């Protein structure tokens, strides 16, 4: 199963190294990690997307993260109402006559063209991971020259409704 786990960590030297080293040593399968500043100075937020085989392993993961001295809080938000977003930059092959076609494809995704050259255009897309993946799939036939993703960053919604499975369906 795929889970989204967030951690609040103290910004100390080596914290990222310590955490990724632990994940590697204990053989957790990490799809993405994103790290950045939080609302509080000196405290960062990390978001992990992990592919995990069972509950027991998942419990180990959260416990091992919690055990880290710099980790303040760990939450598995997969089953909560949340917002999860990522950003991708996609450099796709485009010559004069495909350019308009590609424009047409990206518009419904609210993606934007941020660079154009003779043989390519670079597209920026932000959104839920499934949306980003869908756009990438549509662009693939044109020839993707370069692709980079930030990894998912996520947190809980302001309000937790009763039925949330549907809302989160995109991450499963």
């Amino acid at each position, binding site marked *: 199963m795929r889970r989204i786990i967030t951690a609040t*960590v*103290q910004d100390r*030297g*080596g914290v990222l*190294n*310590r955490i990724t*080293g*632990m994940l590697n*040593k204990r053989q957790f399968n990490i799809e993405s990690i994103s790290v950045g500043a939080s609302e509080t100075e000196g405290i960062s937020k990390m978001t992990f997307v992990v592919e995990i085989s069972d509950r*027991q392993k998942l*419990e*180990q993961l959260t*416990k*091992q993260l*919690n*055990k*880290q*001295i*710099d*980790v*303040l809080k760990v939450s598995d938000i997969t089953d909560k109402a949340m917002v999860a977003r990522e950003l991708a930059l996609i450099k796709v092959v485009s010559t004069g006559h495909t350019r308009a076609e590609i424009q047409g494809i990206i518009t419904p995704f609210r993606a934007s063209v941020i660079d154009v050259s003779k043989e390519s255009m670079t597209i920026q897309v932000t959104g839920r991971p499934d949306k980003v993946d869908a756009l990438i799939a549509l662009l693939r036939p044109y020839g993707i020259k370069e692709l980079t993703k930030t990894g998912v960053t996520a947190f809980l919604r302001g309000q937790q409704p009763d039925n949330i499975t549907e809302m989160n369906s995109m991450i499963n």
Partner: protein
Amino acid sequence: MKIEASLDVEVNGNLLTGADLLIKTLVDADVDTIFGYPGGAVLPIYDALYRNKAETPFEHVLCRHEQGSIHAAEGYARVTGKPGVVIATSGPGATNLITGITDAMMDSLPLVIFTGQVAENVIGTDAFQEADVMGITTPITKYNYQVNDIADLPRTVKEAFHIASTGRPGPVVVDIPKNISANITVDDYDDDFYLPGYQPTLKPNPLQVIKLADALSRAKRPLLLVGAGTKFADASVELKQFAEKYQLPVTTTLLGLGSFPGTNELSLGMAGMHGTYAANMAIYESDLLINIGARFDDRLTGNIEHFAPAAKVAHIDIDPAEIGKVIETHIPVVADAKKALNALLNTQIDQPDHKDWMDKLQENKKEYPLWYERTETPLSPQWLIEQVYNVSKGEAIVTTDVGQHQMWAAQFYTFDKPNNWVTSGGLGTMGFGFPAAVGAQLGRPDDLVISIVGDGGFQMTCQELSVVKQRKLPVKVIIVNNEALGMVRQWQETFYEERYSESLFSENPDFVKLAESYGIRGVRVDREEDVIQTLEDIFAYDGPVVADFRVVRKTSVYPMIAPGKGIHEMVGVKK
């Protein structure tokens, strides 16, 4: 001749340098012994040690190899309960510590390790004796620091001691660049610390205690499995009260030996790969297994599919991440072992009805005791250990190295006290035993310290005979000399059709002469009739001794759970 060096900073004798500040914080931390080895990057620290000698209540012990220093610090920590303190220089000094740091991490020993580092202006340039100590030690420490501002030094050191010695103990590294230790300090620093992410849970959740109490009252085949967590929690008294109150049988892990008196009726001895039949079968048949401070290591469990298959498992541990890590746990209790046992002692629990079980276990104990073949010349190693036990009246501190002799020491030296057994469990580090005895003797100068080692492992760290001589430490080294890497030989005999690949020694040094060359008494014994007299002599002798006991080469540690087998599939249970 006076040579002027162009140091990074000017050192003014009257002002406090980072190194002086370090010494001061070590004094504040009540350190009494430091195990260290000098070198370029720690010269300012060694200079401060020298200059402050008159005011420092601690001793610096110069082991002859950094690995010796750190194993000594581990031995010290194990027998005193206090953190062991180590200083090493940058680069090779620091990397020589790696085995010991890993060993301490695996066995949860509190250590605070100071490594020198090259000056900050050259960090990252592959400077002379630069090693990425932070990178290398991150996976093998409970925590590590590099100090990048002198004002942070006192706080960092305080934190390091706190982290190393609380919760589940472990090693903490403090990496100090040379400019930090050499520079003149500010005097306005703040050493208060707050670690919001590190708040170990000490008190058990009362609901979990009730659950456990309830399970106990219904149990027909209860069993306590005890690990070293009870020693760190200083819980032996409570453990004994609890076991006796409900007449609970007790087995321990290798590292847990002594946390419950081995001579007590309720003791089944050690469990695991070379544990007793009674202990392992008790685990196999138990219907309530209460683990207190053990981590279900694979040498204990054997094949986990067959581990305690009938049991409800309760696990008391201060480290939540150990609970459910390898064995599914029904009643998790995150707590300090002493607090959890006190909570259980203060809970009204109906006496479990388990007389049949107790009778059966006693019968197993009687029917399947540990056994060995007795030989006279060379000696049977197991018999030798029994004599060591008898002559020292079971009261010595025993350190071991790793191999057959370690298992025989665990089997045939019965421990009644918690902090007298010093062995490398998790990492199984050859070369550990003798330097650990150095640290143990320094930590407990009035106790008899016996180091039981193999002829292989002793040669990994025997250079510490120097420090034993220099410090007049009356450590008794008992070499169980089988002219082989015995444990490797045993596995090759059993699992590799006697293909003894690189495991037989024909070229050992003359250990008696080796000892004598250090100015230490050496003896050699190969006849049974000389053993007891020799042991009496050397234990009474007021100085270090190296005793080379010649034992039978071709003998194996039994009983045994072969790799991959279940805890109920022991071989070599009877003669």
